[in-house]
């Protein structure tokens, strides 16, 4: 029963946060000095008829509160509306662009987690040796190098030494898709490794000192079996939790990386939207990213309790 109550409470919290943020974003965007009508008309000849037509189409003559309610109703019924600049349905634009973002997030999380676990276990097994200190300082270094500097150095390096490898811009088939997300994916994974590797290391070290490992040693179990079958099973839980939260957080960091690698994802769309004062796109994308972040962290919370039954969820 505690589970159901907890889940309901969390879901309610997600709904409330989303609602509050939607309100905050909608109203505060209208504080911006640029009026929607200038954005909509853009560089077209501004005639009174055109102004009249757009004012009606985008409900600009209604009071703000009413505009918000209209917008919210549309969103709830699945219609994300039309953007100000291209006047295309936002839903289609998002569907066109979301594969890149999802691909990036999943690819980098899987790669980063696997790498981090391997590095962390290695460091923990070789604790106190030069391998451990080398790996630890490498991770400290990697965690301080900003992602975008790393991506730029990667671009510089690849364009100089592997000029045939195309990893920037749009894609037309699956092979190209993978080659586009490979480089940014690896860079995001490196950022993940820096944090997650340290978590794995400390978690493995505490497990390797646990009494049951001493028993295993006393029984004469070989070292690989001690490490991987026994210690790892217990050590992996906090690692997966942190990985889950970082997975959720990486939705935000794709914004930057997509912009750097000119990938057609929703992150780049958000930045362009902000630059052009394209309010409908900004509103919707902020909500999309926020909801995916909240839902992901919610799922991680639940999984945490499922994986480790000792944890009291509430």
């Amino acid at each position, binding site marked *: 029963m505690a589970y159901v109550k907890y889940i309901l409470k969390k879901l309610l919290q997600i709904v409330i946060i989303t609602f509050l943020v939607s309100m905050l974003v909608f109203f505060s965007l209208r504080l911006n000095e640029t009026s929607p009508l200038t954005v909509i008309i853009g560089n077209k000849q501004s005639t009174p008829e055109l102004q009249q037509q757009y004012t009606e189409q985008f409900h600009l003559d209604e009071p703000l509160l009413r505009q918000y309610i209209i917008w919210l109703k549309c969103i709830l019924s699945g219609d994300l509306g039309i953007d100000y600049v291209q006047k295309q349905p936002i839903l289609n634009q998002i569907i066109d662009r979301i594969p890149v973002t999802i691909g990036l997030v999943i690819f980098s999380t899987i790669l980063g987690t696997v790498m981090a676990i391997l590095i962390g276990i290695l460091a923990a097994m070789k604790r106190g040796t030069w391998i451990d200190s080398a790996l630890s300082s490498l991770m400290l270094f990697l965690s301080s190098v900003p992602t975008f500097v790393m991506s730029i150095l990667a671009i510089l390096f690849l364009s100089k030494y592997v000029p045939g490898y195309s990893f920037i811009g749009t894609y037309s088939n699956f092979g190209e898709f993978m080659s586009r997300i490979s480089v940014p994916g690896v860079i995001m994974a490196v950022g993940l490794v820096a944090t997650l590797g340290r978590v794995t290391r400390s978690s493995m070290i505490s497990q390797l000192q646990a009494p049951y490992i001493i028993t295993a040693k006393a029984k004469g179990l070989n070292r690989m079996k001690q490490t991987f079958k026994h210690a790892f099973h217990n050590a992996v839980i906090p690692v997966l939790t942190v990985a889950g939260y970082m997975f959720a957080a990486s939705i935000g960091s794709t*914004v930057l990386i997509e912009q750097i690698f000119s990938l057609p994802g929703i992150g780049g769309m958000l930045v362009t939207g902000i630059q052009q004062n394209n309010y409908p796109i900004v509103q919707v994308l902020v909500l999309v990213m926020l909801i995916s972040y909240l839902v992901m962290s919610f799922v991680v919370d639940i999984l945490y309790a499922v994986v480790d039954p000792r944890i009291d969820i509430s």
Partner: protein
Amino acid sequence: MSKRSNVGKFFTPQTVISGAIILIAVIAAVFANVLVPYDPNEVDPLSCFLPAFSEGHILGTDKLGRDLLSRMIMGARSSMLNAFLIVAFEVVIGVPIGLICGYYGGKLDAMIMRIWDIVCAIPSLLLSFILIAIFGRGNLTGVMAIGIAFIPLTAKMARSLIITEKKAVYVEACKSMGYSDMKIIFSHILPNVITTMIAQFTMDIGAAIVSMATLSYLGLGIQPPDADWGTLLENGMQNFYNNTVLLAAPAIVIMLVTVAVNIFSDGIQEYIDPTQRKLPTFKQYEKRLLRSGLLEKRQKAD
């Protein structure tokens, strides 16, 4: 494990080297207008894309013939100044809120912490994007956006510190002497908790440099013709086929400074935090005593 030669000291090789890098950046920022060899915004169409180490321009020139070294130094000024402003912003607003919430507790505290939870639920980069979308692009709005995104964590830290600190005996003594709450919070508790927070603030400077460079890189922060390291990086990115230094120089500088700030803050953390401070082993302690001649004196006294 074997390296324990620099225990209990602040000036370890790491802190000295990283401190020197930070100092150079700060000096470049403070004396920018004296140090620049050329006007950083002066356009010279005759000398575009000069390579590094060419005559008169050590780092070469960019697309418009502007001297890169001068622009890097001026960029240091905007980048460092903005980073300090961001941290100052979060300290001036975040710390008092956290302290007051933690000291009084109760409904106000619960309410503000709930709001913080909501703000923390939004990834900080996304939050600054939202704020930029609201306030418009620009240097100051960028600083504000990042500062606001940093506030909740600072406030939470200050709050957790004061919650343990307010049970201390000296706080009770202050209360019994009839000091006002504000006096107790700001002139008695704050000096005791601020040292713990200093390491975090140092680290935040690194994060602030990166965040601001990110915004400028995306064209949402500082606006041309002014430049910080983020803008220079963006310019370099567009023109690196013509001149690689344009890209490499800001990238390397940002990397050096942020890594240095992180290592430096680690050093501060280790020095300040008594639980993390590496105390000398007994042998080293003995050696130190021997060196100072104290041990012999003590033995004589015995």
